């Protein structure tokens, strides 16, 4: 009788294992499209029991399928992709600011100014030609001012975005630390923390994409999060990141790690989307601004020099056409039309008295267009330098697009590999569904057989 009764137990263990398998299969199927979900498998083993025959099947736990090496690679690649994507998007904005190929762009405005000088040289006494010069000069000033203020606005927008992202990251880091504590607690008591690990992985992927953090799991299964060699999360403790104006960055926000009274500058170590934004803000926009400022300063200086040498209709001389700062710094932002120069003060004449038919100085101004020493460190005409600026930003964006495409391809490849190992295959789950269903039916049949045998035995 004892053997028959234990046979019933063996049958029941099969039913229990099949039921657990069905439940887990159902869970896998339901989460097949859930981001961050790793498929689970039942960890089962043959149960110890009576000698020779064994005691059935035992469900030892649930295994969350995970490839840590691929996970690390995906994380690193996610940081690179976040960096490249943010940089490409923002560089495209810089391109629209300094790379306008239309008549109202920097290059078009320079051309219009020098053409207006040529027109003035042809009709120096004509009020319309004088108005045209003032209008063209004003358009050039506006083009420089507008580009400069849009670059300012872009940098401010990046500052705002960095601040918000860092605040979000602090919340995510705190949650990663909290999850560390809960996972340790659950797993130490033999529980299953797969859901918490899924959530933690999702957070880490987001942090990698936004800040370029790196994480690794310790021997105790606790996740440590690093940035620039500094620990952001250790066990169940997270430190805060802050944004603070940084004088070395022109007063723009830097990223600082705050741990008690210690503060560590991490701006140069930040990767991911924020790193890409900072790279554009501090390098690309800086480069664009330097080129733009120098061009504005060079053109303004050359035009002022020639203009001051001439005479207006009213006999005035020595007037600058443009107001400029003392050096090239912020020249694009500060360049302005000299309000002291109106129609009659435009120095078209080269002789004192400003004879109305004397356009010799206007001609000299027009010929600056072909002067290959005006810009580019004395090696280019103003238009050539404007073209170089356009070519430069075009190449930067072109390279950034290629970099983003490569980073996206790499990430997609690694994600595909990870998904291949960790993702849910509905086909597989269907097979397992049938498997567990049959197993359940078979175990039920086993119990039925043992029950019938017991019944027959009881009738004796």
């Amino acid at each position, binding site marked *: 009788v004892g053997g028959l009764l234990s046979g019933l137990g063996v049958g029941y263990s099969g039913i229990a294992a099949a039921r657990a398998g069905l439940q887990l299969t159902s869970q896998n199927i339901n989460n097949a*499209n859930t981001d961050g979900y790793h498929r689970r498998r039942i960890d089962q083993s043959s149960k110890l029991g009576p000698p020779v025959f064994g005691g059935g099947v035992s469900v030892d736990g649930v295994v969350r399928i995970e490839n840590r090496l691929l996970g690390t690679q995906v994380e690193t690649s996610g940081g690179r992709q976040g960096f490249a994507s943010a940089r490409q998007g923002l560089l495209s904005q810089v391109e629209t600011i300094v790379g306008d190929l239309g*008549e109202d762009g920097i290059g078009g405005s320079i051309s219009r100014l020098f053409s207006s000088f040529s027109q003035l040289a042809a009709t120096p006494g004509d009020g319309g030609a004088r108005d045209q010069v003032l209008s063209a000069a004003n358009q050039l000033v506006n083009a420089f001012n507008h580009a400069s203020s849009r670059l300012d606005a872009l940098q401010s927008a990046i500052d705002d975005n960095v601040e918000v992202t860092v605040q979000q990251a602090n919340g995510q880091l705190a949650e990663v630390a909290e999850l560390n504590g809960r996972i340790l607690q659950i797993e130490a008591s033999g529980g299953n923390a797969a859901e918490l690990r899924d959530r933690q992985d999702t957070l880490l992927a987001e942090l990698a994409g936004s800040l370029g953090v790196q994480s690794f799991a310790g021997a105790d299964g606790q996740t440590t999060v690093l940035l620039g060699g500094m620990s952001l999360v250790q066990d169940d403790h997270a430190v805060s990141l802050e944004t603070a104006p940084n004088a070395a960055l022109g007063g723009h926000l830097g990223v600082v790690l705050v741990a008690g009274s210690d503060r560590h500058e991490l701006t140069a170590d930040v990767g991911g989307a924020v790193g890409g934004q900072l790279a554009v803000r501090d390098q690309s926009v800086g480069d664009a601004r330097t080129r733009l400022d120098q061009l504005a300063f060079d053109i303004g200086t050359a035009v002022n020099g020639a203009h001051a040498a001439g005479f207006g209709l009213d006999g005035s001389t020595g007037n600058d056409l443009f107001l400029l700062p003392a050096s090239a710094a912020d020249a694009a932002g500060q360049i302005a039309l000299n309000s002291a120069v109106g129609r009659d003060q435009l120095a078209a004449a080269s002789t004192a008295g400003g004879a*109305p038919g004397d356009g010799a100085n206007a001609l000299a101004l027009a010929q600056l267009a072909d002067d290959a020493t005006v810009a580019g460190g004395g090696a280019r005409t103003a238009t050539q330098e404007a073209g170089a600026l356009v070519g430069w930003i075009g190449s930067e964006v072109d390279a950034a697009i290629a970099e983003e495409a490569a980073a996206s391809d790499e990430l997609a490849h690694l994600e595909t590999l990870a998904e291949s190992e960790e993702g849910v295959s509905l086909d597989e789950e269907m097979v397992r569904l049938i498997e567990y269903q049959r197993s359940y039916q078979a175990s039920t049949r086993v119990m039925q057989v043992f029950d019938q045998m017991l019944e027959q035995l009881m009738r004796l």
Partner: protein
Amino acid sequence: MLRVTERMGRMTTERELSRLGYDLLLRQRQATDGLRVARPSDDPVAARAVVELDDSRQANAQHQRNVDLAIGDLDVADDALYSATELLQQARELALQLANGAISTEQRADAVSTVQGLRERLVAAGNVTGVQGSIFAGHQTDQPAYDISGAYLGDAGQRQLQVGDGVVERVGLSGDEVFRPSGGEDAFASLAALEAALTADDGAAIAAAGARLDTARQQVVESRAQIGAQIGTVLKQGELLADQDLRYSERRAALVEIDGVEALSELVEAQGALQSALQVSGRILNTLSLVGQL
């Protein structure tokens, strides 16, 4: 062996459809605006060249306007000098005719008013205006070149126009160069001398004035030839500019524009690729699974 999950298929499909969708958008834009290079990153080298090319085109257009201005003023100057030549010729012929001893004092006195009229008309010819103002007043374009007596009010300023890259041409002549050249004959003074000789009824002086008028006429004829030469030079430059403009336009088109047929065929190709991808993706995602078979 690589496990294949439904999500992998979805990820690949999303990526591929996104890529094809972007490609279609790009082709649509190109087919609509006809531009291969709409922003610098489309082709940085071409974009850089376009900035310099557009500058050359704008400068070229201005040079063409300058040529038109120059031609207009030179035509006015040419007409004025033709009139001046005719006037001086009439005055010279009148002097030749009235220098004859058979001409009576009354006839000479009657001719004075004719000479005065010729002088007024010569002043008017010297005071013609163009786009820039007085044609023969040098740089003093805002006032007549001559007063009623024929005294020059202008200066020796020379008008120069930019009619090409690094090409500056002198346009027109000052009144002094035409009617009172250095070491030459003063046309207005010659007419005044004729008038005085007629009033004085002095045949020899009339003959002398006629000789001076002939010299003055010759000078104006030479000046007109100079103006003619300037017109020729500027017109030739205008033709060069027109050729250049054509070359610039062709070069710009080659740099930034896309052939219409090519753009349309690429658009159709991109549409087809996206359509095929959508159909294939839909079929794979919907049918190739055990879920629908069991």
